[in-house]
């Protein structure tokens, strides 16, 4: 025990706090991506393998709009809307015909879509990373670092988007429709709720959340055709660890895992820090397979 305490005491406090902030920032973006995934899974029982590509597509559309207008916020809004519409189209064309079939077919179909999207983007934009410049370039002093305000803004915006979405779910008419459909699809129809369109709408919202995350994240790193892959994998881990279908669980898990990874990055390289999320997943599957942040069912 003593060695652990002295070990922790030896870590410079400022490094720890910086990593905490970093962890929370990445965690919030991850939470936003994972929320879309959880939403689609929880309501439609669809595992959206193309979710990472929607994230990536959002970033690319953002790049294009940004190049045209020079305004980050317009890029954010337009990218979100365009990808939402694309998501709706995807659902109508490929997922609606599969309703009622084995749920594995939707995994396969969305996997197929992810391949198409990735390769299309690679074809059109090439392998070189694109960039969106930060909308807010000022920094503040976080200990010895000049920490960009932008990162805090991303975290704040992600939280705001999630919060907005939560309110929407609880209060609005469409939110009630979604919740009714989730609980009892048949009776929802009997009450006049157009269930096929609820599904399309849910998918579009999930796509919108992913796209928004993509644009928000873009200034932090380059925009490439593979950026979706890493995020979708982590998002899946978050969804499983948080409890599949639990929005609150996903958010908690996203922050939890991101924090752990940020701390691990103090000692190991970021590529290896990824192993942390794998370990958390394995432990969760071993001991609390229904999810770490979900009350255990009896």
């Amino acid at each position, binding site marked *: 025990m003593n060695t652990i305490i002295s070990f922790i005491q030896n870590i410079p406090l400022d490094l720890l706090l910086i990593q905490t902030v970093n962890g929370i920032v990445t965690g919030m973006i991850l939470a936003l991506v994972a929320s879309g995934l959880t939403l689609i899974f929880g309501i439609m029982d669809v595992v959206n393998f193309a979710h990472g590509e929607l994230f990536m597509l959002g970033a690319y559309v953002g790049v294009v709009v940004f190049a045209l207008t020079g305004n980050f916020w317009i890029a954010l809004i337009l990218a979100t809307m365009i990808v939402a519409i694309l998501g709706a189209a995807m659902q109508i064309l490929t997922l609606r015909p599969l309703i009622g079939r084995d749920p594995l077919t939707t995994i396969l179909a969305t996997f197929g879509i992810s391949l198409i999207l990735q390769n299309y983007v690679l074809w059109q934009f090439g392998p070189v990373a694109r960039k969106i410049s930060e909308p807010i370039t000022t920094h503040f002093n976080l200990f010895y670092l000049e920490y960009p305000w932008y990162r805090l803004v991303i975290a704040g915006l992600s939280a705001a988007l999630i919060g907005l979405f939560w309110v929407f779910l609880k209060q609005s008419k469409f939110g009630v429709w979604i*919740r*009714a459909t989730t609980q009892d699809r048949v*009776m929802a*129809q*009997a*009450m006049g709720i*157009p*269930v096929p369109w609820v599904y399309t709408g849910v998918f579009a919202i999930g796509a919108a959340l992913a796209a928004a995350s993509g644009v928000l994240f873009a200034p932090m790193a380059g925009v490439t055709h593979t950026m979706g892959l890493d995020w979708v994998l982590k998002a899946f881990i978050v969804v499983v660890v948080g409890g599949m279908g639990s929005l609150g669980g996903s958010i908690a898990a996203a922050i939890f895992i991101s924090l752990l990874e940020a701390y691990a990055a103090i000692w190991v390289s970021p590529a290896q820090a990824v192993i942390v999320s794998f370990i958390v997943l394995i432990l969760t599957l071993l001991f609390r397979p229904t999810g770490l942040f979900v009350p255990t069912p009896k």
Partner: protein
Amino acid sequence: MSATAPSSEPLVQVEGLHTYYGKSHILHGVTLEVGRGEVVGLIGRNGVGKSTTLKTIMGLVNARQGEIRLEGSSITHEAPHRLARRGIGYVPEDRRIFRLLTVMENLRTGFDREGVTESRKKMLLDKVFAYFPVLAERRDQAGGTLSGGEQQMLAIARAMMLEPKIILLDEPTEGLMPRMVSQIHQIIDALHKEGVAILLVEQNVPLTLEASQRIYIMEKGMVRHHCATSEITVNDPLIKQYLGV
């Protein structure tokens, strides 16, 4: 035995309906009709296909053969959510209210439609709360916390929010105390007075005979007999034959 024909063109007509669950042939050519504002009873033993008939009308189960018409136009393969909007309300057996939604939200799924003004919504709510004061008390409670009888009332109230022309009522009194049974009777009467048609599936024969103007008796997936309720009593040998205890 002649049935008194409904005074105007029937609201709902079902002709030669055949329904299957997988390979099981459940409905063998059901034919019946409900006139505007009529209360029509559908009785028979367990498993003869009464609920299936309602489900098929509502589009929740596919009819393999036959026709269903609403106000003259065919609705045989129409989607359930469109039928709800066209004025068919459905109250299933075992109620099936949205357990995790509040009473208010349950009702909301009914009145939150296009073309309904805020004042009309308020009027609908007031009316329903007048019928079911207990729902007004519990309006912010989750549906799952209500008692069986209260859930039944909520299920009916929810359907009423659609301002339907006809309500398909599936065994509303099942599992309810006698006091509640008579309350259901009163509600059916009140709805009838308002001009809402009701197709009532029930095991409770006396109630059905009292509340309905006509009845159909089903056996083995087909209608075996139909007549006006004025022409038949509980002790009729037909009742014993088809519902025999």
